[in-house]
């Protein structure tokens, strides 16, 4: 009994005393993924417009300029309000796509925007702009994971 207890105490001390905190470990893991600790990564956005596939691929997406990027999701203040939103933006060779997540804390789940909230530009394709406009119109995004 005594030996088991001593062994248990040794295991606990070795498991805990030499480790960084869990938050620091998660931040370090997060930073190693964004600062080239491993491969720089590739970001890809693919969608279809009337059956035509549009694909945008960006190598080393975290090195894009914050004020002008080709593919990214940024946290910003919605114009004319004090509300924080997330804006998903994609510039492709055929146009651009943008979607605003009306939330101040992006999480896994479904985000939907319908025309009853007012016109919202979502897509430009070969010179034609598309909006969520009619009350019956809607667009939704399903976030399955993020990091």
């Amino acid at each position: 009994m005594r030996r088991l207890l001593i062994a248990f105490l040794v295991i606990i001390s070795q498991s805990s005393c030499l480790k960084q905190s869990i938050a620091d470990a998660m931040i370090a893991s997060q930073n190693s993924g964004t600062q080239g600790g491993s491969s720089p990564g590739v970001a890809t956005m693919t969608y279809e417009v009337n059956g035509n596939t549009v694909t945008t691929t960006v190598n080393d997406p975290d090195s894009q300029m914050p004020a002008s990027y080709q593919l990214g999701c940024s946290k910003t203040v919605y114009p004319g309000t004090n509300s924080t939103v997330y804006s998903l933006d994609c510039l492709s060779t055929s146009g651009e796509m943008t979607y605003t997540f009306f939330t101040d804390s992006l999480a896994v789940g479904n985000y939907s925007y319908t025309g009853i909230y007012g016109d919202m530009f979502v897509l430009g394709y070969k010179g034609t702009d598309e909006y969520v406009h009619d009350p019956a119109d809607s667009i939704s995004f399903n976030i399955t994971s993020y990091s």
Partner: protein
Amino acid sequence: MVGNNTNNYSLGIGAYIKGVYPVSQASDLTLELGANIFFLNDGGSGDGTALVPIKAGYRYSLNGTGMGFYVEPQIGYNIYGVTSAIVDGNTENFTFHGLVLAAGTGYLFLIGNTPLDLNLHYETIIDHGGSDNYISLGLSFYLHFGKRDSEQ
């Protein structure tokens, strides 16, 4: 909290509910569900660390009677944990689970007919390659739903 990067934490608070099943005159199996909150010394923003561990343990009284001084190793799982941290000037909340290991000692005694437990525990939660550690000092009382054979 104790360990790396815990200087900014103030004293925390916690509560637990524990089931005890005697297996011998001197020892019990235990099952404990707890909740602990540790606040950061950051001007009262409410940021800090919260933990909800569930642990199974083996409590052994050193004098063999089921009362008095005891030792109790525990192992379990952190059902829910969240820590606030400042990243690039913004507060981010990191959620985690993790393996829980704990070792404690205490003193079981009676005041009148009320059984009390004065205890000291060291607990570590391991996840994502890091660990959160804390020392707790507690006083609890027991509700009996049965008695040891020696007490009947």
